[in-house]
């Protein structure tokens, strides 16, 4: 594979993607800074530290064919009572908008929000990523439809939101943007679910931009269950006010090639962030979780836990950056990353990064990569479990710390996907 992306190659990719997205339908105006950034930024290569283990060169080959047929995909987690919205390849296809008027809650497609309440989105909906990362710039230069959640100050969204984005068979590109704004002392819960068919190819280049007000709370579960060969880039950006509470749980249940960038900015004092994730690549899959939290103000807390298994010849990457800014005193920031290698040819690259510029903080990180505990395996087998049953139980146990935080119906789904993929049920 050619590691050096010549300008013509990535400019050509940008042109193909923008054209395909425009043909299918864009939502709102391209972000002006993003268009500039797309020209100015380098295409990611493994020579850049942030992309050292992640070969983005393979995305240069992505060539979308005709637009996706907009058929409703099978319903996910049917038992979950939620405000449901379905998107196929960046287009909204179903879901009933909740619109309580200019002063009330709005949950619906971004396209509808932009028509009805452009002024409510203006102040905050541009992503900072879009000027820093080439793929984020690409997304922002040709944005497509996603879910928009607006909860005004003091409101509590009564039902959770489930936004389901689906990629159908064929080579398609989708660049959905999801926008979430939780006003001061307001709260909401949401599930962002992306999946695709086993014959889906192409690229999913998605962005979440969320802002959580003072004293507000947001709980978000991100499920990525993507068989097929879609390349998935996620740019997830959260800004938190004072005394706010943010929980982001990400389960990469299945992905051919996936990179998630999660960035949390604590833009007020006493903010609390919890971000957990789990991943389990097998075959020759690739999963990369890059996280960053900025403690920019005093008295914040963060709790990060990512756990994963790499089976067969797969590769997993975890990079977790904790940035404690000068004067952000009395921060408590904890990071833990635990990995199991299940295949002799599986690879795991884990890198904690702590940058601390304040002097009165409590930060810790722990990072381990190992194999199954043979003693535990023997113990289970000595009780009559087959190797398969024992492995299954140990994986369940290993991931429980992360998976138990999800809603039970989602936890069970993710676990069954893992078990099925490893041939354990």
């Amino acid at each position, binding site marked *: 594979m050619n590691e050096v992306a010549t300008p013509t190659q990535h400019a050509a990719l940008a042109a193909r993607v923008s054209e395909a997205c425009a043909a299918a339908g864009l939502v709102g105006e391209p972000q002006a800074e993003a268009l500039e950034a797309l020209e100015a930024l380098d295409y990611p290569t493994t020579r850049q530290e942030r992309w050292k283990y992640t070969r983005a060169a393979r995305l240069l080959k992505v060539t979308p064919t005709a637009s996706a047929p907009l058929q409703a995909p099978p319903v996910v987690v049917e038992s979950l009572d939620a405000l449901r919205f379905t998107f196929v390849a960046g287009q909204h296809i179903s879901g009933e908008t909740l619109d309580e008027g200019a002063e009330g809650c709005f949950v619906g497609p971004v396209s509808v929000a932009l028509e009805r309440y452009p002024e409510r989105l203006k102040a905050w909906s541009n992503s900072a990523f879009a000027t820093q990362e080439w793929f984020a710039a690409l997304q922002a230069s040709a944005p497509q439809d996603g879910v928009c959640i607006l909860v005004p100050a003091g409101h509590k969204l009564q039902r959770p939101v489930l936004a389901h984005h689906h990629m159908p068979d064929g080579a398609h590109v989708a660049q959905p943007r999801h926008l979430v704004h939780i006003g001061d002392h307001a709260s909401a819960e949401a599930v962002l679910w992306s999946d695709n068919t086993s014959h889906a190819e192409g690229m999913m280049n998605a962005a979440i931009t969320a802002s959580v007000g003072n004293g507000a709370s947001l709980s978000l579960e991100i499920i990525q269950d993507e068989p097929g060969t879609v390349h998935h880039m996620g740019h997830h950006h959260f800004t938190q006010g004072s005394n706010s509470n943010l929980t982001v749980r990400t389960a990469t249940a299945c992905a051919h090639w996936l990179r998630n960038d999660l960035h949390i900015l604590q833009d007020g004092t006493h903010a609390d962030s919890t971000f957990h994730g789990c991943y389990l690549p097998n075959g020759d899959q690739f999963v990369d979780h890059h996280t960053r939290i900025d403690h920019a103000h005093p008295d914040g807390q963060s709790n990060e836990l990512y756990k994963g298994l790499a089976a067969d010849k797969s590769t997993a990457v975890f990079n977790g950056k904790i940035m404690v800014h000068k004067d952000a005193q009395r921060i408590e920031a904890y990071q833990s990353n635990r990995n199991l290698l299940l295949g002799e040819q599986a690879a795991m690259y884990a890198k904690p990064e702590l940058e601390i510029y304040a002097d009165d903080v409590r930060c810790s990180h722990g990072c381990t990569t190992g194999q199954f*505990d043979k*003693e535990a395996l023997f113990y289970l087998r000595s*009780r*009559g*479990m087959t190797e398969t*049953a024992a492995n299954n139980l140990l994986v369940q*146990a290993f991931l*429980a710390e992360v998976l138990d935080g999800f809603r039970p119906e989602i936890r069970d789904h993710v676990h069954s996907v893992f078990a099925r993929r490893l041939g354990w049920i």
Partner: protein
Amino acid sequence: MLKIDNLHARIGDTEILKGLSLELGAGEVHAIMGPNGSGKSTLASILAGREDYEVTQGSISFDGVDLLELDATERAVAGIFLAFQYPVEIPGVSNINFLRTALNSIREQREEEPLSGKDFLAKVKACAQLVELDGKLRDRSVNEGFSGGEKKRNEVFQMAMLEPKLAVLDETDSGLDIDALRIVAHGVNSMRGADRSFLVITHYQRLLDHIVPDFVHVLAGGRIVHSGGKELALELEEKGYDWIVDAEAAEQA
């Protein structure tokens, strides 16, 4: 029921068992005592099918089946249970889920129907009572944060649930206070029966005050060097092992 004949085994380059022979009849309780490093735990591990050991010579037959041909899972299915000296902590797996999975895995391999939820819970209740294991411990992760005594009680609880034909207790008395010892022994005693045998491996005679064996064997230098009735345990407690080991050495010479 169990016949071990001239067993030689090693781990890496270290030979540990050097011609061990032992026979257990159905319903019998045999105690194995011996100095540190004599191979007691090795014997337990080999019976349960731990793969770290290499058997270089000899045979083990269990109910007429060549045990050495079976892996750890198959041995459990055949009815062998090892109560571990150091029970393993498995965070994230509840004791109940663990037992349900084990029990149904065994039943499936024996081509039996899985136990109904109701029957399973009734059995859990009865077996837990046997070793005075309270509800909280049943619902907690396997052995995680259990005290030494709780871990051993949990082993006997599992044994009661799985109803083995041969139970091997590997230093089940180590780390037990006198109350826990009594509870564990009570659990074991109430499981004694005509078709269940026990191999009780211990350092100390005190366990044998509670679990009274039919036979006592002394394992030293990788072999059974002396066998006797239950009174042998008392003699060993009093005189130590040296007199037997020395006598054996003299005999060999």
